[in-house]
Every structure is written in structure tokens, then in C-alpha cells.
């Protein structure tokens, strides 16, 4: 365990709008730490999203773009085709990525677009107040599934990593979580691998991070982390789904 800790220089020193115990903050910080460690702050263009991640461009200390809802991978494609040597990544939630932005996500992977998606899955639409998302668990109560998500009404949770891992254009696909320190360390490694995959020019990469939403789940932050571990992980298993070896090594 490394000792000592200070704020990554790739995070702007300002207060965040996230609710208490929201995991977005941890995931933001991991991205920033990895970019610091890889020395890429000056070469990074971040593409945000619409939802709780909407202000990522105000929190990261590098060039940023705020796209429309779900279109971040298309915007990132435009940036990357113009600036192929930069680190270009999107930061999207499950509503943004797995519902309205499914097409852009899938076809970025189909093209093997050399970008990275950081996908924060908290099983619902957080910013609009906790509506059902494609990732909502079976039986999970949200404001639009008041009786719990049912098969007849809303089908089944969408497993993004498993689907993308079948695609030839996808070079690195992994799912992590941040519900305890060990998972934080693993997720950071996955983000680093994804960024390294991109910088090696190997193609599309995505890291899904299971994330707690204490506010909309109606739990305290500790209960919410336990919910991730006990209820989300069985549906969204953790691990690497596709790895393309990087010859230069990370």
C-alpha cells in the first residue's frame, strides 16, 4: 500500500456537486491519478456526458467538451480523428451510455475507434431523480418502476461489457467497482490499462465502474456500497472481459 496521499494535479481544486457518498468522486479521482501517473495531462481531451457526470469538464484539469446526451463517443470520434496522438476519453453514466447513447457506444466499438469510455453504472438515472435505466436490477424500485423492475414491463438489465467484448474492434473491456479499497485499486489498474491500450493505438476500450447512488437508492453511503457488492456484482460480474496485450507494457 503506497503511503501518503495528495490531490492529483489533474483535478481542479474546487468543491463538487455530488451527493454525500456518491462514487463519482472516487472515479473522477482515479481517472485523474492515472493521467498524472502516465504524464498525459497536457495531451488529454475529456468528453463529458449529461447526467450526474455533466460537470466532469469543470472538475478535470485538462481540455474538456460537454456533448449532448449519449453522443459522447461520436464527439470523441471527431476529436480523435483530428488529434490521433492525444488521449481522448468519455465519462458517461448508464442512462447516457446504455440507453440513449447505445448506438454511439456500439459503433465506436465496431469501428475499433481508438478512444476510451469510462462508464459509471449506478443502475438508474441519478440527475433526474432516480428513474429506471437499462441497467436497473430485476425487482429494483425506482421512481418509474414503483413496484420494482419487472420482466413483462421493462425486460432485463443490460450488460454492456459482455456485449462489447464480442466485438473485434474492442481492445480492452473491463468492469470494476469501488465499494472497498481493494476494488478501488483494481479499478484504477483497469483504467490505466484502458488508457495505455488507447495510447498504444490498439483500439476501443471501455471500463465500466459499478457505482453507488445513496441518494436515489434511499440508503446511507455505507449501505449503498454493500448494495453494490451484494446486489450489483452478481448481475454485473467484475473482471476483464477482453484484453489485448500491450507490447510496450504498462
Amino acid at each position: 500500500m503506497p503511503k501518503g496521499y495528495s490531490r492529483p494535479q489533474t483535478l481542479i481544486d474546487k468543491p463538487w456537486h455530488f451527493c454525500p457518498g456518491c462514487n463519482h468522486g472516487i472515479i473522477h479521482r482515479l481517472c485523474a491519478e492515472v493521467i498524472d501517473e502516465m504524464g498525459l495531462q497536457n495531451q488529454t481531451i475529456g468528453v463529458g456526458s449529461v447526467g450526474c457526470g455533466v460537470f466532469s469538464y469543470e472538475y478535470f484539469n485538462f481540455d474538456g467538451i460537454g456533448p449532448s446526451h449519449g453522443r459522447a463517443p461520436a464527439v470523441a470520434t471527431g476529436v480523435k480523428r483530428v488529434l490521433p496522438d492525444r488521449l481522448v476519453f468519455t465519462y458517461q453514466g448508464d442512462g447516457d451510455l446504455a440507453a440513449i447513447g447505445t448506438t454511439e457506444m456500439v459503433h465506436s466499438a465496431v469501428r475499433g475507434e481508438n478512444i476510451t469510455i469510462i462508464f459509471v453504472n449506478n443502475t438508474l438515472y441519478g440527475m433526474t431523480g432516480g428513474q429506471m435505466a437499462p441497467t436497473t436490477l430485476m425487482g429494483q424500485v425506482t421512481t418509474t418502476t414503483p413496484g420494482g423492475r419487472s420482466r413483462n414491463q421493462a425486460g432485463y438489465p443490460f450488460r454492456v461489457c459482455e456485449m462489447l467484448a464480442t466485438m473485434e474492434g474492442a481492445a480492452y473491456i473491463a468492469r470494476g467497482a469501488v465499494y472497498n479499497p481493494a476494488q478501488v485499486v483494481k479499478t484504477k489498474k483497469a483504467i490505466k490499462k484502458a488508457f495505455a491500450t488507447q495510447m498504444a493505438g490498439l483500439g476501443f476500450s471501455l471500463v465500466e465502474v459499478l457505482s453507488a447512488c445513496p441518494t436515489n437508492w434511499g440508503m446511507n453511503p455505507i449501505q449503498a456500497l454493500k448494495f453494490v457488492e451484494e446486489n450489483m456484482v452478481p448481475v454485473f460480474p467484475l473482471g476483464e472481459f477482453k484484453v489485448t496485450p500491450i507490447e510496450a507494457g504498462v
Partner: protein
Amino acid sequence: MGELLLMKGNEAVGEGAIIANCRYFFGYPITPQTEILEYLARRLPEVGGAYVQAESEISAINMVFGAAAAGARVMTASSSPGISLMQEGISYIASAELPAVIVNVMRGSPGLGGIHPSQADYNQSVKCGGHGDYKLIVLAPASVQELIDFTILAFELAEQYRTPVVLFSDGMMGQMMEPVLLPEINTTPVDRPWATTGMNGRSPNIIHTLYLPADDLGNHVKQLFAKYDQIAANEKRHTQFMVEDAEIIVVSYGITSRVAKAAVEMARENGIKAGLFRPVTLWPFPDKALKKAAENAQLLIDVEISMGQMRDDVRLAINDRLPVDLYNRIGLVPTPEEIYEFIKSRAREVL
């Protein structure tokens, strides 16, 4: 200047983009614009650029957003239904003040409509089909040569004002072949200090469209409209033909303005004092010039391949002082004879 070449309208748009130093194109196949993307899919790699065939027009316009944010000259093209899909993205590009060129090779509509020539997307672009307070510069070429020249002009205006520019073509102009001269232009490297290219030592550049505090949003929109006022003051363009003593003025743009010119000539040969006023920029609409041109007229005739979408702008330009008739065809370009017959019949009644 080189020698005359025979070029198809859609290819002319593509070559115009290359001449204007556009190196990125994102698009999706749709008739009748498809030759633009086919042409650029072949040409862009030859000049060190990139072509990406998007999975939809929604993705294409957002790729344009990204490439423009990254400081590139970038274009997309589509036909009417595809342009409808782009409206959200166009609103974002306008709000983010990014330069981009959007070509609409208009086809029959509404709905799937058809692949005929059309001018029925006037309101969508001139009045802005996306959400919110914004404006688009809309250029209306009327020949294959102008498709090249105005494509280049579109990039220059987009860059100068950091705003999206729409270039109108249609199913006929896109498909017709005419001799053209390829202009040679000097492209000086453009400085885009606002672009998100990686900080490289400076503070972060942020391109976004979200202004949560009401005052911030208000100031942003006011600043956009101060720019639009400047565009309206500087960029109104039109041409006119025999309007000075005209009693009947035909107002028409794009492909129909060419046909209308021939009809006006026929009218003159038959003793009817007719003239033609052709808006070249549809926004900003050349209202003062039309008002002046119509000073001695008794009747205006709006000729369009739509149900008269431009007519409101014509009426506004002349303060509704004169009747503004509509002669239109849907799905095809009217012939000079048809327009002439209409002019003749109206002349009998009004003059």
C-alpha cells in the same frame, strides 16, 4: 485559374470542401446527397484527411461537433430526413460557437417523401429546427459553379463567425453536371486558440453549452445574438435581374431562381415588365434589398419547390405592402414556360 471541368453538383460540393482546406467529413448515405460522401471518402485520404461513415446522421453531426472542437475544418452532408436527425446537434454546435458546414441536398418530404428535388427545408434551417435561440447562416447556390464557390464561402463564414453554416442544394442540383472552374484560394493557417487540442502548457479550454445560472444563460444567448446582429449587418447577399422598372418581381432562390430567370426573360420578350430577385443568403435574408427592389412593383411572385416557406420572409421584407403570390411545384422543378404562364395570367389580373 485552370481549365473548365465538367462536374456533378454533389462532387462539386466535395471538391469545394477540399479547396477550402476541409480535411474531415462525417456522414451517412442518403439519396440524393450520397455522391458527396462517396467523393470525399475517396478524396480526403489523398489529401491527408479523414472520412468516417457514421452509423446515423445523429452520430455524424456529433462527430462534426468533436472535430470542430478539436480545431478542424469539418463538414457533413445529408438530405432532408437526415438533416432532421441532426437538428439537436446543430443547436449544440451553434451554442458552443463551433465552425462547421452542413450541406442539405433537399429531397421530397415530409416523412420519407421521395428523392425528388425540393426546397421544403427552408423553415427548418432558416428558422432553425433545433431547440433554443440560435441562428444559422444559410447559403443558396444556384449552379454547380456556385456549389463550389459557396462551399468555400461557407467555410470562411463559419470560421469568421464561429458558427454553423448550412449550404442548400437539392435533388436536381446535386445530380446535374455543368462546366466549372476550380478556384485557387490562398489558405492561411487559422489560429483557433479556443480549440480543445490538449492543454500543452496553457489552462484548460472547455467547450460546452450548459449555463445553469439564469444570468449566465442570458448573457450567453445575448452574446450569440450580438454576433448574429453583426452577421445580419455584414452578410446579406442577393442578386437581381431587371427589377428596376419591374411591375412584377419573381422572388426565388436556388435551382428555381435559374428557371425563374428564364421565365422573366420570356415575360420581357412579351412585353411584361417582370424582374427577378434572388436571395443568396436565406438567413440573413436580404430584406432591405428586396424592399428597395420592390419599390416600383405591384406584385411579387414567390416561386419555390415547397408550399411557400419563404413567403413570410418576403412579406416581412416589404412590410406586407404588396400581394405576394405563390407559384410552386412539389416534387419537381417547374419549367420556364410554366412560370411564365403564371406571370402572364397574374399580369392580366393585376396590372
